[in-house]
């Protein structure tokens, strides 16, 4: 019996990969940027996200008053409805609350707090997760199982519960020393501790994959620092997934902060985030003063929706399986 086999080319349909250029250029020349330009919704979401960040950064320039400074608030300006309604008054575009605080200015400053907590929380979660993931992957053994077991257990608990507990414990330990600034730090820590698991799992998985590759064994054989070489492969490989996780987590972190503040366990009234503003405004809903809660709510929803849209697009664009 003759069993010759026709030479089999499996990669005949694989897309061409240009060998020149860095990974950055390659990525942005090809599919990622293509799908970005193709999706108008994604471009809109990116624009809105950038706009929100700019509004937050330049809050002090754009606001008509500093809503944190009691000296600038006048009670005679309280409960003014938005500018386009019959009782509207300039310069209060979106109306004022019962302390005479301009809702638009409060939103700008609240946005600043929300974004600060969100971004710092995601960064902390990322650093924590990537570090623990690398340790788990490289060291392996008992260390690995302890870290991953903690991750498994934590993953079954919703982030909001963990964040609430961290917050409650901090309150109990710090008591009256808990001012606005330290609350912000506690919130960042609470969010960091709630969201590290996904990063750790991704990085650990990538380390595990690289560990079994031939070049690592080869490097070890000829006495090269295999760990260092692996790191050079692991980190670029995980950049994509980490970016996706970070984007989606930013939305989740902002929601978590807003929820904590709404529940009264987050930012205090003296330094309100969007969640705090919504909690305050909610009390005036029955009195018909809808604008005090509606506009912070809209801002929060718009911000999260835009970030989620970006995250969705990133995930689809970086995951060739879904295309």
């Amino acid at each position, binding site marked *: *019996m*003759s*069993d*010759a*086999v*026709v*030479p*089999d*080319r*499996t990669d*005949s*349909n694989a897309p061409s990969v240009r060998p020149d250029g860095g990974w950055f250029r390659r990525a942005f020349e090809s599919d990622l940027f293509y799908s970005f330009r193709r999706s108008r919704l994604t471009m809109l979401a990116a624009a809105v996200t950038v706009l929100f960040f700019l509004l937050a950064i330049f809050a002090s320039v754009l606001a008509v008053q500093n809503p944190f400074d009691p000296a600038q608030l006048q009670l005679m300006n309280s409960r003014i409805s938005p500018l386009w309604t019959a009782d509207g008054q300039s310069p209060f575009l979106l109306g004022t609350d019962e302390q005479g605080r301009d809702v638009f200015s409060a939103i700008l400053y609240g946005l600043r707090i929300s974004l600060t907590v969100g971004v710092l929380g995601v960064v902390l979660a990322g650093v924590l997760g990537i570090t623990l993931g690398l340790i788990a992957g490289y060291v392996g053994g008992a260390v690995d199982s302890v870290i991953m077991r903690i991750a498994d257990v934590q993953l079954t608990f919703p982030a909001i519960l963990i964040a609430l507990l961290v917050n409650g414990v901090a309150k109990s330990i710090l008591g009256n020393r808990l001012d606005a600034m330290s609350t912000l730090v506690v919130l960042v820590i609470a969010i960091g501790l709630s969201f590290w698991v996904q990063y750790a799992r991704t990085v650990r998985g990538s380390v595990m994959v690289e560990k079994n590759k031939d070049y690592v064994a080869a490097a070890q054989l000829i006495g090269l620092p295999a760990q260092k070489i692996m790191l050079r492969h692991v980190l670029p490989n995980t950049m994509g997934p980490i970016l996706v996780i970070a984007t989606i987590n930013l939305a989740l972190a902002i929601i978590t902060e807003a929820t904590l503040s709404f529940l009264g366990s987050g930012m205090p009234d003296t330094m309100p985030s969007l969640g705090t503003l919504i909690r305050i405004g909610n009390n005036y809903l029955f009195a018909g003063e809808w604008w005090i809660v509606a506009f912070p709510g809209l801002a929060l929803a718009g911000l999260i929706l835009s970030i989620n849209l970006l995250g969705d697009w990133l995930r689809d664009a970086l995951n060739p399986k879904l295309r």
Partner: protein
Amino acid sequence: MTVPVLSVRDLKVEFVTRRATLRAIDGVSFDIAKGEVLGVVGESGAGKSVTGLAVIGLIDPPGRISGGEILLSGMRIDHLPAEEIRRVRGKRIGMIFQDPLTSLNPLYRIGDQIVETIRTHTNLSESAARKRAIDLLAEVGIPAPEKRVDGYPHEFSGGMRQRVVIALAICAEPELIIADEPTTALDVSVQAQIIALIKRLGRDHGTAVMLVTHDMGVIAETCDRVAVMYSGRIAEIGPVQDVVRNPLHPYAKGLMGAIPTLAGEDKRLVQIPGSMPRLSAIPPGCPFNPRCAFAFDRCRVERPEPLPNGAQAVACHLYDRAAEESAA
């Protein structure tokens, strides 16, 4: 002359991607007669599997049949409404896929999968269909079928699962079986058994078989006729003896030269230089011309059509010229 079971005429299949429209099948024609086994051979990406899927009407978007016709016992089946082609699938054409490990739904007992298929295509009662399922399992060589009928796919070995897949393909007594690389995923020791089984079933039931493979050994052993495909076209087609012993197309020559034989042990195996072009970069003229040792100017400009040459048909300008000269 009787009507062939399957007749494919100038079939064209395209895939529309966002960059370009790729033509995976470009003007393929062949017939399969009752009881005949046609082997379709070629490299991956030559269009063998796509041809099989086109016949059974399973080309999914972004792919589409863009030209030609497919006749099953004289009846056109391309461009049938979805519901009608569905009735043809499984009933009149049975299909066997490459990987038996993934072809069966893991959550259903194999008996239920067979009964379901039988009852879709016939009026048999539940119990009659079950009896037939057991008979089928016996026919494809599954030991203790009355017990195994209630097993789940994961309880069967690869070879046994492929037998179940075959039982599923023949359960409605189809006129045509399309076997797409039925042995590629199996152990070498099991391959021969499966091939023998397909051949026996074809003979016993008078079923026409289209056997897609890249294994020349399987072709030589099993088939009555063979079609050699290259870049979505048929390079050469003819009786298996002729094509294997006396290949005409330079590509077919290369393929046959790559078969080791017991007789010519001291001869070096021939290798074809280069690789098949991508669908997006098929050269004008004959798609094989960049790799062909005999290519001349005409091959780079004009596409060769299949021309009869004895019992074979070959798409190569070399034989066109020979025909002209002998005519002159």
